[in-house]
């Protein structure tokens, strides 16, 4: 399965060669002039990526960081490792997240009704790492330095989004970019979650992160930078599409399971992203929350 954004990325590769950046058990990242291209085995579609099956452990297929890769409309290759991924039979999907207009008001009303209960479930099931503690209202200062830095920044961001000030929101976002542990730092995951919610409810503030992504590659990891740029453009991982659809959907019963699935993404990425989604939905639906 391939994201519609991939060809865009590949066409700019003529400028500079593609290189293998990193290899994990079921993920390969390839740098391009336009950000990271990711090949992943599980977890659903990525806005910057290709879902493929390369075997049980991709660290064993002979790839090394730095190897040259090339790509065309038809395939992605790493010649030195004998790896070839054909696009011919692949299904396409669009990472663009936008809810149909007639559903937006219904979804906002639904969210208002279920926000408190959903947050309670998230609080109970979220990981304690990353920015998970911010799902509670009574977090004391001094427990985690990254959380302490994030709190005022998030508070400022929420205020800015509530009054519709994109520039101020982007300023607050800058304080969150690159902040926290993980290959995609917690702050970036939260921002992606917020953007996903804003796009899902078609708010005018959606895309505010675009004002903060100038030179973002110097301020956070390559993967996080790539995902932030996609988020600014309204493009998100498939699992975020599914999560938002469930949170705004008609079936209350499905929400706890959806939250469990979200929390299981990565180590803390899921919790951080979920925190962002809940914040974004609250802001978009006009539900007031105090962070401090």
């Amino acid at each position, binding site marked *: 399965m391939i994201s519609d954004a991939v060809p865009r990325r590949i066409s700019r590769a003529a400028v500079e060669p593609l290189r293998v950046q990193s290899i994990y058990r079921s993920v390969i990242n390839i740098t391009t002039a336009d950000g990271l291209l990711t090949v992943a085995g599980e977890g659903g579609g990525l806005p910057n990526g290709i879902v493929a099956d390369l075997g049980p452990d991709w660290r064993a297929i002979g790839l090394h*960081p730095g190897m040259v890769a090339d790509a065309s409309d038809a395939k992605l290759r790493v010649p030195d490792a004998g790896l070839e991924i054909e696009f011919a039979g692949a299904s396409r999907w669009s990472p663009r997240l936008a809810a149909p207009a007639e559903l937006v008001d219904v979804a906002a009303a639904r969210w208002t009704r279920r926000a408190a209960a959903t947050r309670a479930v998230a609080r109970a099931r979220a990981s304690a*790492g990353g920015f998970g503690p911010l799902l509670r209202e009574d977090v004391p200062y001094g427990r985690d330095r*990254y959380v302490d830095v994030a709190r005022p920044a998030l508070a400022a961001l929420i205020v800015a989004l509530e009054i519709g000030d994109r520039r101020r929101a982007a300023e607050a976002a800058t304080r969150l970019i*690159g902040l926290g*542990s993980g290959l995609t730092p917690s702050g970036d995951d939260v921002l992606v979650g917020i953007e996903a919610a804003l796009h899902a409810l078609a708010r005018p503030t959606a895309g505010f992160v675009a004002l903060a992504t100038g030179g973002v590659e110097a301020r956070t990891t390559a993967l996080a930078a790539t995902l932030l740029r996609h988020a600014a453009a309204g493009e998100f991982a498939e699992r975020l599409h599914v999560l938002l659809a469930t949170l705004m959907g008609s079936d209350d019963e499905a929400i706890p399971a959806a939250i469990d699935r979200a929390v299981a993404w*990565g180590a803390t990425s899921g919790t951080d992203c979920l925190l962002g989604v809940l914040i974004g939905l609250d802001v978009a639906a006009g539900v007031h929350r105090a962070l401090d």
Partner: protein
Amino acid sequence: MSTVNARIFPNSYRDSVELMQIAAEIESLPGIDRAGLVMATPANREVLAAAGLLSEATASAGPNDLVVAVAADDEGAATQALERAAERLAGPGTEGPSETTRTDARTLAEGVAEIGANLALISTPGTYATAEALKALKRGLNVFLFSDNVPVEDEIELKSMARARGLLVMGPDCGTAILDGVPLGFANAVRRGTIGLIGASGTGLQQVSCLIDRYGAGVSQAIGVGGRDLDERVGGEMMLAALERLGADPGTALIVLISKPPSASVAELVLTAAGHVGKPVIINFLGGDPAKVTAAGLIPAATFEAAAATASAMALGRPVSSDDALGIVATDQGAGPAGDDTSSRAVHDAQASLVPAQWRIRGLYSGGSLAGEAKLVLGASLGVVAAKLHEIVDLGDDEYTVGRPHPMIDPRLRNEHLAAAAADPSTAVILLDVVLGYGANADPAGALASAIRTARDDAARADRRFAVVASVCGTSSDPQDLVVQERRLAEAGVILAPSNARAAVLAARIVAPAAVAAGMHP
């Protein structure tokens, strides 16, 4: 002196879950105070800098580089930790946590069917514990109920149902038991013998059982009844049931009851029942009136040590020494009276190291009952009024453990208090309990020793010294090994006592002259 060291790992391709596991492992290495494992983005570098974890070594790191930073006791520990991190990051990587041999069974019913169970160990949140205990009793299982926050009405119903069916409900809020030699909850590996213990206090049971082991005797059964069993409303239901059980048990020759003093009516019930058991019963109601006990034809014991010593002597057929109020057993290990040479010298040396401003005992306890016993012993040694001037704290109490692990499991809470106590210029003695056994931390002495050393160094810079007195509640068969733990503490200059009561006596002896001189004591 804390050393900060850090290393950049530019090409470490571990996913976030593995990074989290590596961070946890590094943080728990000996001598490591704090560790951070993050990508070196500008935002994270700021945080590291504010935490004092940034150094020259990390100056050149960029947002796609991983930084491992540690604050450790010394260079050696820091380097070791970074080496370990390097190893983990370079290796092929784990596939995740290893499979625990866990069953698919989700419900009690399924679990019972699987192994033909006769006992349920329940440690769910209190909200759900009653339902699980009911289900267990209905299936004929005895219940060890660790959970607390169980309403008293539920406890009454459970114990009444248990009585009707001849089953035991140990709890709620029961931390310790040893049944047929199998430790349950926070319990120690104790020699088997003929002494039966019944206790409403978990650490009380632990202390008594460990001392019995130290004195060469053994335990037949140690039955916990839960912290609220002797409350008026519950009426000592389980203690009475356990008394009956052990009274009829051919493997139990004598019984010890351990609790804080119950109300008059419950005390009467219990003492009467104990009187009818037909075996010697030692009553260790901490702070209770011995006269009532003797009047009931039973044997009073004022401290855990006295209870253990008396019981052990009786079980082994040896004379009970009445050298001092504590009661001592003469054993081959030469645990002599509190006035023996080794401890006298230690007391004298400690006193010599103090300056006049230092007079206070700061007790930092992980076991509530041990803290209670310490207060009692200090009251007996120094006088009740004077004893109150010293600060004995139970760090396992709710007010300290909100959002934090219990000090028996995680040393960090107590270490923080220890540093603060050592920094207080009025502190003369820091008094500690170190509890071993199943459920407790893997190396409590090591963690304490490290914190003590740091605190001593800090105090030394202000030209101050202080004494640390501790007792280790454990046995050499415990996973942590009593002998090893005592040695680690001794190497850190800790004055060791074989029991908590004795440790409190030592602390009192150390401060007595200084406190009098400072006008704190009469």
